[in-house]
């Protein structure tokens, strides 16, 4: 029998983070989260240094069972870059990802490190992983044993008891919280196996007459709230008073304000950042509003917007958003795109309309390199056709590095039905560069997309059918405008009629000229389609997907969609042994060359299997996974165009929470990846990573994390069939000490790395709640680098929450 002490409440205050598994990066300081829930969107946040020099941050992620990485541009706000993965990506047991930071000089920094120069075509052999936990099954519930719901009893008869017998194995009972009338009573509750018992009289508590409510909060292994249950009862007594107040709906609001000053010294260059943000949330009856404002000193006309502002107002039938929003449309057309403008969603019962309009790119003027008389223009253009040229007046022209055109985007999606049962939607998107927005630019573009989507759910959602299709038209250079009749007659005399008809038909929506695609409707090169069928029966979650994306399919609302691919993906996720074991098997076969324009078709085949064990006892949980990725075309291996490689990956992840003097969590991560390239290039890659970490929560308010990671990498050499090694070992020691409860917390980290890559990281943080609800957060980091100058970061942040 375990009687919980105050310690456990204290433990809840700690962040039960896994030890930081150090994987070397020169630009990226951290990336979170380490865990996610199946079937829910995942927000990935990366902390980046020297943010003022960053041009873009790209997240490449791969759900379990898929061979290809999806690319998403992360939104950079201050020194944090964020992206939201769709719920469909959260497939147990894990999501793989890596992050590519491109600075303004075009240099790429990849985290974890990639073996090749282009991480988009040659992803790193070892990637970061987010563990994805299964969501709780519907039968998971708290059983209240006593008192009976809504019962009335004398104070001396009161026994509050409940059973956790039927709760899911993913629940970590050590984190269970019990509240009585909103007050924490966990420390006085008796936990005995599955039973939870609280006798107020035994705890010296005499409940006053009236209505009372006991609330149970269950948490998963990541300390995320997973389930709640409550029970109300009444206590009789003399002068009984039972409230009969009619609940009112007052104005409720909350928010926070944040001011930060940050100094970065990197490679002997010092940069100050000053930032402030305010978030406000409010409700009044059915009206909800959210406001965000972020201002930073690194806002510049030479970069895309770094400041952010946002305001939304929502009632049950309408939501309106203004500022920087990320509207959700069918993901073939518009997804994870920041739009500065207006976004709305109207819900009139059966009929819904979603719309968005705004700027996706701010105009950034190109840089003038030289000026010359107009009569030299032809010679200059012939000498450097990639540069931009503009008339600067006075008979002179300028040559410049091309800038970025202002681009606006409009999308509209009327739909019918409800996404919970049946919904059919139609989407229109158009986006266009403004050629007049800058003087030095090249190839302004234009794009329209028309799509439809359908979702149907049957048998209480156990069967789900999702279909999407989209047709795009794209013009890669609209600077010359649409065809004139004279041009059509002179260049296309035999097809003049058809082209004129096409121009007249589409000319109101998109510029039609030589740069317009599709050139022909004979082959669906600008079409994308996807069908998904999922069934959830008998503890099996079966999913079947077919996708087709033509080689020329383009949507400015979905910048990173991989095109020229088609094929199927099938997976089955099932539960065994009373939900203690989860297994996944999957198969995927994709191929390119959808337009039959390439000399050969490459087939990408993936086989994978994983098994996870989530014990109900105090036994270690573990996940064992295997995947085989095969890429093959039918070109002879001695040709440079040949593709023939196989990658085998085996991984083991395990965690174990145990008591030994105090509470410890042991994490083990083993991963092996072997890529064998059968072509003449022999770009073989061999990675092996071992990480062991131990998190200890002491009886005093101290938590420590110790981890060691060994990375062994055999990488392709500079010439074919040669290799080089990159081996290093990273250690991490972190301590978090609550010096004064609820007031002062101190955190320190030492992270030395040895081997082919060597540096030592020192990090110190303090969180001081000097006057509730105000807090100061201080952070100082020092990177002792080998062979290059050392780096330092100092940050002071003021936080006010209300």
């Amino acid at each position, binding site marked *: 029998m375990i009687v919980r002490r105050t310690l456990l409440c204290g433990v809840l205050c700690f962040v039960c983070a896994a030890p930081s598994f150090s994987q070397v990066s020169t630009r990226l300081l951290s990336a979170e989260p380490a865990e996610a829930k199946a079937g829910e969107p995942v927000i990935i946040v990366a902390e980046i240094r020297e943010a003022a020099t960053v041009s873009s941050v790209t997240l490449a992620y791969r759900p379990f069972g898929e061979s290809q990485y999806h690319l998403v541009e992360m939104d950079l706000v201050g020194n944090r870059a964020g992206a939201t993965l769709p719920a469909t990506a959260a497939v147990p047991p894990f999501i793989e990802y890596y992050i590519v930071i491109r600075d303004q000089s075009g240099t790429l920094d990849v985290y974890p490190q990639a073996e090749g120069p282009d991480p988009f075509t040659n992803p790193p052999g070892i990637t970061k992983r987010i563990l994805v936990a299964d969501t709780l099954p519907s039968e998971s519930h708290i*059983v209240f044993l006593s008192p009976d719901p809504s*019962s*009335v009893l004398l104070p001396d*008869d009161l*026994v509050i*008891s409940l059973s956790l017998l039927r709760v899911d194995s993913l629940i970590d009972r050590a984190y269970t919280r019990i509240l009585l009338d909103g007050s924490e009573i966990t420390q006085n509750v008796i936990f005995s196996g599955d*039973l939870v018992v609280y006798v107020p009289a035994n705890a010296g508590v005499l409940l006053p007459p009236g209505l009372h409510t006991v609330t149970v909060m269950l948490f998963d292994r990541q300390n995320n709230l997973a389930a709640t249950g409550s029970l109300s009862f009444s206590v009789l007594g003399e002068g009984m008073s039972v409230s009969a107040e009619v609940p009112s709906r007052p104005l409720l609001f909350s928010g926070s304000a944040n001011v930060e000053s940050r100094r970065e010294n990197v490679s002997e260059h010092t940069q100050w950042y000053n930032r402030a943000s305010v978030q406000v949330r409010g409700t009044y009856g059915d009206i909800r509003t959210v406001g965000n404002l972020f201002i930073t000193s690194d806002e510049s006309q030479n970069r895309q917007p770094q400041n952010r502002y946002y305001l939304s107002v929502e009632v049950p039938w309408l939501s309106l958003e203004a500022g920087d929003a990320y509207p959700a449309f069918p993901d073939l057309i518009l997804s994870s795109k920041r739009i500065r403008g207006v976004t709305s969603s109207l819900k009139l019962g059966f009929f819904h309309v979603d719309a968005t309009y705004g700027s996706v790119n701010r105009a950034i003027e190109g840089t003038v390199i030289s000026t010359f008389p107009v009569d030299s223009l032809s010679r200059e253009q012939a000498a450097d056709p990639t540069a931009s040229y503009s008339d600067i007046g006075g008979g002179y022209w300028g040559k410049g590095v091309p800038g970025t055109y202002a681009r606006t985007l409009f999308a509209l999606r009327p739909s019918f039905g409800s996404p919970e049962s049946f919904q059919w939607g139609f989407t229109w998107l158009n986006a266009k560069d403004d050629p007049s927005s800058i003087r030095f630019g090249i190839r302004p573009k234009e794009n329209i997309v028309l799509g439809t989507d359908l979702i149907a759910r049957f048998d209480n959602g156990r069967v789900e059918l999702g279909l999407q299709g989209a047709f795009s038209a794209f013009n890669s250079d609209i600077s010359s405008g649409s065809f004139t009749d004279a041009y059509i007659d002179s260049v296309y005399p035999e097809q003049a009629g058809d082209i004129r008809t096409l121009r007249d038909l589409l000319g109101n929506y998109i510029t039609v000229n030589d740069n317009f695609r599709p050139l022909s409707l004979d082959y669906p090169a600008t079409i994308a389609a996807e069908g998904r069928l999922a069934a959830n029966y008998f503890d099996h979650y079966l999913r079947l997907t077919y996708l087709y994306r033509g080689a020329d399919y383009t949507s400015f609302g979905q910048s990173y969609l991989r095109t020229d691919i088609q094929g199927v993906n099938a997976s089955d996720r099932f539960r065994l042994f009373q939900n203690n074991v989860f297994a996944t098997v999957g198969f995927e076969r994709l191929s390119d060359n959808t337009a039959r324009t390439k000399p050969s078709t490459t087939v990408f085949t993936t086989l994978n299997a994983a098994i996870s064990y989530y*014990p*109900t006892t105090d036994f270690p949980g573990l996940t064992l996974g295997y995947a085989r990725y095969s890429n093959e075309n039918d070109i002879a291996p001695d040709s440079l165009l040949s593709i023939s490689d196989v990658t085998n990956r085996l991984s083991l992840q395990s965690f174990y929470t145990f008591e030994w003097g105090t509470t410890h969590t042991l994490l083990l991560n083993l991963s092996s990846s072997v890529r064998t390239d059968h072509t003449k290039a022999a770009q073989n890659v061999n990675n092996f990573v071992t990480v062991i970490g131990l998190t200890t929560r002491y009886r005093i308010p101290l938590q420590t994390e110790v981890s060691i990671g060994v990375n062994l990498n055999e990488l392709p050499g500079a010439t074919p069939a040669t290799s080089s090694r990159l081996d290093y070992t990273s250690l991490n020691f972190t301590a978090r000490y609550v010096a004064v409860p609820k007031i002062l917390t101190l955190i320190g980290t030492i992270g030395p790395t040895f081997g082919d890559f060597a540096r030592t990281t020192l990090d110190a943080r303090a969180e001081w709640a000097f006057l509730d609800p105000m807090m100061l957060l201080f952070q100082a980091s020092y990177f002792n680098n080998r062979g290059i100058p050392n780096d330092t970061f100092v940050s002071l942040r003021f936080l006010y929450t209300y």
Partner: protein
Amino acid sequence: MKPTRTALLMVIPLSLCIYGQLRAQHDPAIGLLSKVILDVNRKPAGEDWAKAERGETLDSGDMVSTGAKSLAVVKFKDNSLLRVRERSRVTLTGFTSAGAFSKDVRIGSGAIGFSVKKQQPNEEFRFTSPTSVASVRGTMGIFAIQDTFDILIVTEGVVNLRNILTDQSVDVEAGKVGLSYASGRLETRPATEGDLEEFQQVFGRAEGETGGKQLKLQLRNERGEIRELIIEIE
């Protein structure tokens, strides 16, 4: 992939599984005493009898006895309920295997009212006496032992009653009474009004704990409106 790495990746989880199976044997509390009236005693396995307290948890193997005009209400952790009537003695055992919680109530003397929740697959709820075994799957009723026979009154669902001497069994349906004799005879008959009155005395109006009385309160809210609050009381 090098053989040593593969072996390492395979051996570690296997070892952990074996270790886990060795540790996954213990079975802690199976229920609690949610109500104790007058003379109720409890005897944990291997210990002496002691006065029982309301809210005490019961471990597998614990015994509970009641004196004259006494009552104990036991709630199992699957929310099944026992009312141990006066002058009764029971031994409670339970074990969990792969998430299924099975219970056995051995009746040494007296009578027990039961309200058993619907059992999950692979779960079992049994009453045993020197004469009979009753297998219950989501029913209400009374099981009592007399000098020469056991009597089972079923008011909801079906209970399988088996005579240990002859190993014969019979399904006792709702509204019927099963009789299992020490001589080996096994019979059923329709429940009489006396049987049902007996049941009512044990359980009252509602399932287990709630009585049939209502308390009506007239309350005035801040707008001066009169609202009637009706609450059930024991």
